[in-house]
């Protein structure tokens, strides 16, 4: 009988595997059936031993599958269903955002954790968006989780911090298969829907308006196109309309903030049919508003550009003297204003200097081209 089992066992196993049963599970089932055979066959061997074994093994297998799925259902039910008690009436997304933007986290950790926990991106996607190894991003995220777990939730979350993290995500360049700008807008929409804060709406409007102009910011070859030279037919008018509507509702609340001011400036640019028709006096007014909320030197530099459009390059150059030397793009602005004022030699020299200070390849190439253009002039 041992010899018989050695022959029919593998045959039964083959039948089960061919029926699609996973190899390990099929082997278990056939082993069970063989045990039954050892118990019963001494009383009378079946006419078709292989058929008998297959039938018994198949039944054993079905029993295991049913028991497994029933167990999984029970576990899932226990895991997913909350314990009985009073239901909590609050938006969990908001809570999660506050947790992911915890003050104890560095900006890059907050960004990574937000994208993972609220955005639902995989660690691999986040790593490829930020061009770091997946293991590095995994470490950053698990470290952030540990920090948040150790610090816990202390008091109400800081909405301003959440907004800054979302803005960081929007502004970050990306090299992977995930569009971080679109992801930031999606999360800002959720946030804006979950809170009535006008600054959340301001950030949403700002990101929508900038995103709308994205298709025109670079040539197909990747060269930077400055705002004044962009093809406005490429701007997404639906996004602009939505951004303006969101901004108007926020402004009507009469609780002005930094993001609403920036969105207002972006809206004025988006609204101009040509660069020449930009309402620079209003842009300048909004920069004056913006400087009451922030003493950022970058804002001060941008205000100089608007001022020069309104009162001329000489006034702009005088105002530029108050902007600290180490502000990024200051030299580029100086070059632009000297060119406008007709001092092409100085402008060319400054463009070349600005190119050396540029923080990106596209910007460096753009400034080098400007310098080269004036070199020939």
């Amino acid at each position, binding site marked *: 009988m041992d010899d018989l089992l050695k022959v029919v066992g593998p045959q039964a196993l083959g039948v089960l595997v061919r029926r699609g049963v996973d190899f390990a599970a099929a082997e278990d089932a056939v082993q069970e059936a063989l045990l039954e055979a050892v118990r019963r066959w001494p009383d009378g061997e079946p006419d078709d031993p292989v058929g008998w074994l297959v039938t018994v093994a198949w039944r054993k297998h079905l029993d295991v599958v049913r028991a497994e799925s029933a167990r999984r259902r029970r576990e899932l039910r226990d895991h997913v269903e909350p314990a009985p008690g009073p239901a909590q009436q609050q938006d969990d997304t908001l809570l999660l955002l506050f947790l992911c933007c915890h003050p104890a986290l*560095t*900006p*890059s*950790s907050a*960004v*990574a954790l937000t994208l993972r926990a609220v955005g639902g991106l995989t660690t691999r996607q986040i790593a490829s968006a*930020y*061009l*770091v*190894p997946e*293991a*590095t*991003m*995994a*470490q*950053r*995220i698990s*470290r952030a989780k540990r920090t948040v777990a150790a610090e816990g939730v202390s008091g109400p979350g800081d909405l301003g911090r959440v907004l800054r993290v979302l803005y*960081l995500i*929007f*502004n*970050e*360049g*990306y*090299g992977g298969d995930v569009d971080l*700008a679109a992801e930031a807008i999606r999360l800002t929409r959720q946030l804006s829907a979950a809170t009535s804060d006008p600054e959340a709406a301001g950030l949403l409007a700002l990101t929508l308006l*900038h*995103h709308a102009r*994205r298709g025109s*910011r670079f040539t197909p070859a990747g060269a*930077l196109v400055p*705002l004044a030279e962009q093809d406005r037919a490429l701007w997404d008018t639906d996004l602009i309309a939505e951004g303006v509507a969101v901004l108007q509702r926020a402004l009507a609340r009469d609780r002005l903030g930094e993001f609403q001011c*920036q969105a207002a*400036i*972006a809206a004025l*640019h988006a609204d101009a049919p040509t660069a020449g028709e930009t309402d620079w006096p209003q842009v300048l007014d909004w920069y004056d508003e913006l400087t009451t909320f922030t003493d950022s030197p970058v804002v001060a530099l*941008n205000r100089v*550009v608007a001022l020069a459009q309104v009162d001329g390059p000489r006034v702009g150059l005088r105002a530029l003297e108050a902007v600290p030397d180490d502000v990024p*793009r200051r030299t580029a602005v100086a070059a632009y204003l000297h060119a406008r004022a007709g001092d092409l030699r100085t402008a060319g020299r400054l463009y070349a200097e600005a190119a050396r200070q*540029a*923080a*990106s*390849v*596209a*910007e*460096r190439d753009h400034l080098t081209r400007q310098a080269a253009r004036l070199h020939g002039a």
Partner: protein
Amino acid sequence: MAKYLLLKHYRGIPDPLPGTDSPMSEWTEQEVADHIAFMNTVADDLRERGEFVDAQALSPEGTFVRYDGEGRPPVTDGPFAETKDLIAGWMVIDVDSVERAHEAAAYLSSAPGKGGRPIHEWIEVRPFLTEVPTVTE
């Protein structure tokens, strides 16, 4: 969220701190082992912080190669490097600020050498040119 290249140089660096320029060949076996172990610890710590991107060591021998016209073999000069500067290896990190990049470079520079004292090696820190932020005006 900005990448920096930390460069180690064979030569071409500024003057060393007095008393820290004894070459590795004059160290004891244990001192060399401690130095290498420390370098690995720095990489592990950066990995654990989620800041490590890449690190490689380079051979001191390099060759200068030049295009010399259609259909002609490349011209080589060397293998002797004529430059006063020679790069020994690099580490790439992704950190939140330039201050943090300097801190990490200083940590790398504090590796123990002869007598277990820090070698105070110069590390060059160079920022990567990155993508342009969306918001410019």
